[in-house]
Each structure stands twice: as structure tokens, then as C-alpha cells.
């Protein structure tokens, strides 16, 4: 048996060696390199042909838009040096910066802008296509340094839609031949931005180096490495271990710990991967008989404890939504509305009045509800994408106490879009509606009847009200800010009155970075002004 004893000893030794060896850390690296954690492999790096959030996040540093948005989301010059708004808001004339070169040395001209809009953005970029497409008559390049946008009617929010995350400009000379979706340049991209593409190892990392000739000045960093780390917790662990310097998003449970860590700084921002100023919103399917009764919708709004959502779903981050338009769009947000507050007694009264009564069972049943057979249990479905199901978990817990049973139906995004927006086969659904920088971008689509369409994140409720449609039409065409503010206030009062949605949480996002770095900006080019030391 001495042999087996030897064998055990050998196994023990090997394990010890392995564990001891593992505790050593073996990496050295250049202090001027910023390492960024990226949650998803973008697959390709051309943000002009997709609205995929990880492509946008990964590729923004390589490109520029005609304008940039500063920390407070005001348009500032980028590829366009200055611009004029003509014809009462129906024509925009941009004067381009001269002497800008693509990373491959070719000179940037107005032809690139026209090409990018005509051939890529307006064809393949779903958001730009949907928002600009219907009102835009043409994009013209009268000379090498002038671009003119001609609209069919006055269009107020254009400048908010021309920054690098909405409308990145790509080089015509590399994309004019062949299918842009399958162009090899997509994985070896060329832009004008502060960083140049160096290498891409799928599922592992993307490397950029500083563009020494950047027209707004060379970045202080020498390189940016985007590491693909799919797991949120691992991203945090990597930041704490100093393996990573920047996180786009910190998961809830880790926030307190990071905030207490002297080697890490955190930033709170309204920007997230899906867009800015997002509100997690519960939508009623107004085609369902039970949901047509305003009292029932109000009852559910009263039964929802929004602060608890903030506390337990968002881990204290963000705020309970108190209006249909996010407080991040300061000029349009109405802070003086009377949104239903958490009140289970009021909810119970409203449900009783609506014909949903509670006899001996836990779940209410219908008695004289229009379109619903008597005795039907008040069980409603809740559809959402898997990442949003935790809202459903809490909603189920909260509505149970007023006698409503919630059935969770998690669906992958494609099926979700199909079921909710195309088939309209749902009772309630959750969506993160990013309001963007202007109500025209992300709010209009939720309320106007023309956007009841088989399009993801359009008018989910199927809400139609001619007054609402008219208000949005006026607000979109008004060029005066006070006028727009007044109209959006009316819009919000009407929305709260009709309650097609329950606005749950204005979600915000926590970014975190290593204390050895500083100078990050809140813009898409967050790293262009950053510096890192030892």
C-alpha cells in the first residue's frame, strides 16, 4: 500500500504547487494604457449599420459625429465647425472642419457625410432611419466642406441626433464598393476619432492606439484596450484587482463596496447602454378588456410601491419616476404632476368599483366587468426580456397583496418584440424606454397613435388619443423652447390622466474607474481627455 500513499502524496504536492503558483500575479503593463471592461463582444465595429449597444460603446472612440454633445448634452462642434438653421428649422447648413484626415491618411470631405447618411445611416441604422427618415428630404454636399440637411417640415431635434453615438461618420472611400454589412472594414475600422484601431481578437479584446493627429488634440493616453468580460461581477473583481481601469456599468450589489474603495472612483450618469434618460415602464395592453377600465389601471398604479423598486431592484440607484418624461430632460420634465402614490386601500376600492371583487379566495374575480365572464380570476400576464424579469418578480409580490395574480412570461428579445409589438399578445409588459436627450427621440413613440406598429419599443400600450397626437405634432414643430415646455407639460398631464403606462423607475447608471486615472468626460469620447498614472 506504500504505492498508494505515494500516489496521494504526489497528488497533494501537485495541488499545493498549483495553488501557490496561482497566487502570483504575472502582468506588467504600460501605465498610459487604459483598460476598459466591455460586457459583450460587439462582433463588428461599424456603428453606422446597427443600433447594437455594444457596437456603439466599443466603436465610439474611433469615430466622430458632425456635432458632439457635452456633459450637459448641448451640441458642440465636432466634424462640423459651425452650423446655421435656416428656413424656420427646415434646413440645416453645416460647415465642416478643414484638414481632418481619416486614420488611413485620406482627407475627410462632405462627400463622406452625404455617403454615410444616404447609404448607411438612413438604410441600416434603425433609430436614425426611423427618426430622420420620414421628415428628411435630402442630404446635400454643395462643396467639400459644406453639408445641407433639407427637411420637409421644421425639425427641432436634429442637433441632438448627430453626435457619434447616433450618427457616426464613416469613410466613403472604404465603403462605396460592395455590401456594407459584409465589408471587411467593419472588423478593421477606419475613422476620424481620437483613437485608431489596432487589433481585434474576437471574444477577447479590442485594442486602440492614440490618434496623434486628432483634430481636437492628441489624447493623453497611448492606448485603450477593451477587454470583453461578460460577467458583471467579474468586471468589478477585475477593477478591484487593478486589471481593469474603467467600467461602463457597476451592478447594484457591488456599488456600495466600490464607493468605499479608495482605489476606485464612481460616476453617476443617466447614460446607459440602451440610451440616456431611461425609464423602466410597465405598459398595459389597452386592447385587453380588463385594461380598458381606467379605474383598474389606476388601481394597479396605486398598488405599485415605486420606492421599493428603487430600493430592491435598482439597489437604491435612480429615482422613482414621478412623470412620464424623465427628469433628465430638464426643460420638458413636469415635476408637479399628481401621479398615483402607493396606497393599497385606494387600489382595493378602485378594484372593487371596477368589478373585481375579493370573496374568499386570495385572487380577485370578475363580477360584471365588461368583456370578461363573471368569475374569471384576476390573473394577468407580464412579459419582459430575461434581464427585466426581476421587475416582474417584485410586481408579482406587490400585486399579490391587492388580490391580483401576476404570471411571469420571460421572452428573449426577438420573441418579446414579436409577441408584444407585432402580435400584441400580452396583458402587461415591461420596457426600458430611453427618453434620450429630447422627448421627440424617445417619448413621442410611446404615445402617438401612428406609432402603434409592429416595431420594437413603439407605442406598447396601443394608446390612442387624438388630443395627444395633436399635442405631439405641435410640440415637434415648435422651435421655441418655452412653447415646447408648455406643450410637453400638457402631454404629461394627459398621460397621467389616461395612465396607459405605470412609470416605475428612472434608472441611472454607475460608472467606475481606477483612481490612478482621471479626466474622464461624460461624453461618448469619455477617454479622449483622460490620463492615467502609476
Amino acid at each position: 500500500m506504500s504505492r498508494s500513499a505515494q500516489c496521494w502524496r504526489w497528488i497533494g504536492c501537485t495541488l499545493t504547487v498549483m495553488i501557490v503558483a496561482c497566487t502570483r500575479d504575472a502582468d506588467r503593463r504600460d501605465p498610459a494604457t487604459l483598460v476598459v471592461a466591455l460586457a459583450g463582444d460587439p462582433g463588428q465595429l461599424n456603428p453606422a449599420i446597427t443600433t447594437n449597444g455594444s457596437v456603439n460603446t466599443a466603436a465610439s472612440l474611433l469615430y466622430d459625429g458632425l456635432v458632439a454633445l457635452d456633459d450637459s448634452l448641448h451640441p458642440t462642434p465636432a466634424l462640423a465647425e459651425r452650423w446655421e438653421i435656416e428656413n424656420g428649422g427646415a434646413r440645416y447648413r453645416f460647415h465642416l472642419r478643414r484638414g481632418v484626415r481619416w486614420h488611413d491618411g485620406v482627407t475627410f470631405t462632405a462627400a463622406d457625410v452625404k455617403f454615410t447618411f444616404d447609404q448607411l445611416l438612413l438604410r441600416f441604422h434603425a433609430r436614425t432611419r426611423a427618426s430622420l427618415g420620414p421628415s428628411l428630404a435630402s442630404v446635400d454636399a454643395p462643396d467639400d466642406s459644406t453639408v445641407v440637411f433639407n427637411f420637409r417640415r421644421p425639425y427641432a431635434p436634429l442637433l441632438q441626433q448627430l453626435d457619434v453615438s447616433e450618427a457616426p461618420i464613416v469613410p466613403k472611400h472604404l465603403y462605396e464598393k460592395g455590401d456594407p454589412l459584409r465589408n471587411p472594414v467593419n472588423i478593421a475600422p477606419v475613422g476620424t476619432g481620437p483613437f485608431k484601431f489596432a487589433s481585434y481578437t474576437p471574444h477577447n479584446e479590442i485594442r486602440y492606439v492614440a490618434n496623434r493627429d486628432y483634430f481636437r488634440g492628441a489624447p493623453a493616453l497611448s492606448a485603450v484596450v477593451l477587454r470583453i468580460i461578460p460577467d458583471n461581477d467579474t468586471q468589478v473583481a477585475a477593477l478591484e484587482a487593478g486589471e481593469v481601469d474603467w467600467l461602463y456599468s457597476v451592478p447594484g450589489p457591488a456599488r456600495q463596496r466600490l464607493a468605499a474603495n479608495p482605489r476606485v472612483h464612481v460616476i453617476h450618469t443617466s447614460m446607459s447602454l440602451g440610451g440616456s434618460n431611461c425609464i423602466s415602464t410597465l405598459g398595459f395592453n389597452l386592447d385587453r378588456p380588463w385594461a380598458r377600465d381606467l379605474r383598474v389601471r389606476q388601481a394597479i398604479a396605486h398598488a405599485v410601491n415605486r420606492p421599493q423598486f428603487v430600493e430592491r431592484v435598482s439597489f437604491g440607484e435612480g429615482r422613482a419616476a414621478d412623470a412620464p418624461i424623465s427628469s433628465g430632460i430638464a426643460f420638458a420634465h413636469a415635476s408637479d404632476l399628481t401621479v398615483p402614490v402607493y396606497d393599497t386601500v385606494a387600489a382595493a376600492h378602485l378594484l372593487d368599483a371596477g368589478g373585481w371583487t375579493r370573496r374568499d379566495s386570495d385572487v380577485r374575480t370578475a363580477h360584471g366587468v365588461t368583456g370578461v365572464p363573471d368569475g374569471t380570476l384576476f390573473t394577468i400576464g407580464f412579459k419582459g426580456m430575461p434581464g427585466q424579469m426581476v421587475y416582474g418578480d417584485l410586481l408579482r409580490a406587490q400585486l399579490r397583496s391587492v388580490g391580483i395574480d401576476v404570471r411571469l412570461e420571460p421572452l428573449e428579445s426577438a420573441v418579446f418584440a414579436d409577441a408584444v409589438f407585432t402580435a400584441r399578445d400580452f396583458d402587461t409588459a415591461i420596457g426600458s424606454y430611453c427618453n434620450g436627450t429630447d422627448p421627440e427621440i424617445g417619448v413621442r413613440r410611446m404615445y402617438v397613435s401612428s406609432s402603434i406598429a409592429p416595431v420594437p419599443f413603439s407605442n406598447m400600450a396601443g394608446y390612442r388619443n387624438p388630443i395627444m397626437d395633436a399635442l405631439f405634432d405641435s410640440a415637434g414643430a415648435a422651435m421655441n423652447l418655452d412653447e415646447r415646455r408648455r406643450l410637453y407639460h400638457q402631454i404629461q398631464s394627459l398621460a397621467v390622466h389616461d395612465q396607459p403606462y405605470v412609470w416605475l423607475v428612472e434608472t441611472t447608471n454607475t460608472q467606475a474607474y481606477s483612481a490612478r486615472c482621471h479626466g474622464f468626460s461624460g461624453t461618448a469620447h469619455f477617454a479622449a481627455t483622460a490620463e492615467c498614472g502609476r
Partner: protein
Amino acid sequence: MRQVNSRFVAGRLLQVVPTVAAILLTGFVLVHLAPGDPVLVLAGEHGDAAYYAFMRHRFGLDESLPRQLIVWLGHILRGDFGFSYVYGRATSVVILERVPATMLLTGSALVISLLVAIPLGAIAATRPHGARDIGISALALGLYSTPAFWIGQLAIIGLALGLGSFPVQGMTSAGSDATGWSHSWDIVRHLMLPALVLASQEIAVLVRVTRSTLLDELSREHVRAARAKGLTALQALVRHALPRALLPVVTIVGARIGHLIAGAAVVEIIFGWPGMGRLLLGALQSRDTPILLGLFFVVSFTVVLASLLADLAYAAIDPRIRLR
């Protein structure tokens, strides 16, 4: 005898053709019967109907099902498995990028499990129902009853977070510029936990198989005769029983390849190992049909091939099959 055997081999080989065809068809039908329109993911939010129609046409999604099947079979014959919606590249290229990571993980797990399981099985077999045997058998059954994801979670809590000895996720350290040996070492450090977790599942099975085949062998005449000539139990085991018992063990390994890959998928997801399992998860979320079909096909084909080899090896050593 030889004739029967070669007839069995030929028959077994022929069986592969309808099997592969059935797998192809199953995968295709499954993916295309499912609800949900891939174009909605492809195009993201805010598209309009015309845009969706346009994208659908670009990717051939507006064709009839039989026509899509023919197109897809054409892609398979050409070896590219179609064009990934998300990655914008040939599916085969995207999958092939992931194969080395999965092979490294499964290969290491297999080696670890053989190195651990065969000695353990042998120790257990030397004295059946002794204390060691009971201990080892209990350990094996315990591991066999434990879900891989839980072993993974416990390993992360205990070893990676608790001791801080192992990296939690990924294949290389983030931000490391290491090359050459230190790069390989970096990968090995990341490999250890996932490989051990995956190996634990195989160890559970292999210990039991080793033990029982060894017990069978030890009861045979020639081993008993060797014992009678004065060899110790251990010597008899190592010299006479073990070599004959190894082939069935290797055969089982081949036949379990499907389980191994499935286990690898779970382990990859827990540890962020950039192999086919993670690709599968991503493709499910984005409804990237060509990738899903490609993965299903690659895994099925591997299983068919491995089980073919295992059966042939089994036929070569099991007299019952030859005599039939």
C-alpha cells in the same frame, strides 16, 4: 468472426448517414418553427416596417421554408454553415474561433479526470467494500449527484473569492500584455478552476467504470492464477487487470463526449470561458439562427463521430458482439 465484425463496422458506418441527415433536419425544423422573428433583433428598436422587410430580404428570411433549407444545406456543403446575422461573418468562422477554447477546456478536464479517476478506481478495486472503496465510491456518487453549476458556484465562493487564489473569470487576465510563457501561464491559471469543475463530473463516472471493470478483470482466471503465483493484489492489478480494463474506460470516455460538451457549456457560462457554450448563450439571446444551427450541428456531429468510434472500439474488445 472477422467477417461478422467487418459487416458490423460497415453497417455502423452506413448508419451515420441517415443520423446526420436527421440531425440536420431536426435542428432546422426546430429553429424555424419557433416563434420570434430574428429580424427584430437584427434591426434593433426603432425600425419601421419597410426597414424590416428590407433586412429580411437581405438575409433571405423572406424565402419559403423549403427554399431556406436548400440554401442552408448548400452552405453546409460549402462548409460555411451560413452567414451569422450578428457577427456579419460566415458561421463556420465564428464557431471555429471558439473551438480551441472549448477543446482546451474539455481536453484538460479529460486529462485531469483520467489522471485522478483511474488511480482512485484502482485503489477502490484493490479491496472492494473496504473503507477506501466505500470512501471513494461515496465521493464518486456524490460528485455524480452534484450539478456542475453548483460546484462552480462553490468553487468561486471558496477558492476564487475566499482564498483569492484563482481568477474568477475569463481566459486571460484583463489588461495583461504578457506574451510567450507568461501568457501561457496566465491561461493555465484561468483554466484550472473551470477544468477542475468540469473534470469533477467526469471523475464521478470514470471512477465507477474503472472500479467495476477492474473488479471484473480481477475475478478472471489468469489474474487469479497470477495471484496464486505470489503477486500482490496491487501487482496483479497493475500488471494484468489494468491494461485490459483501460480500453472500456477509454470507450466510455468516447461515448460520453456529448455529456462532456454539455458540461463544458455550463462551465463556460459560469466562468466566462470564451468557448462554444458562451457562443450558444449569446446566439440564443440574439436569435442568431445560423449560429444556433451551426453549433447544434457541430456538437451533434462530434457526438455521432465519438459514439461511432466508441462502438467500434467496444466491438473490437467485447466478444459478445463478435460472436453474435
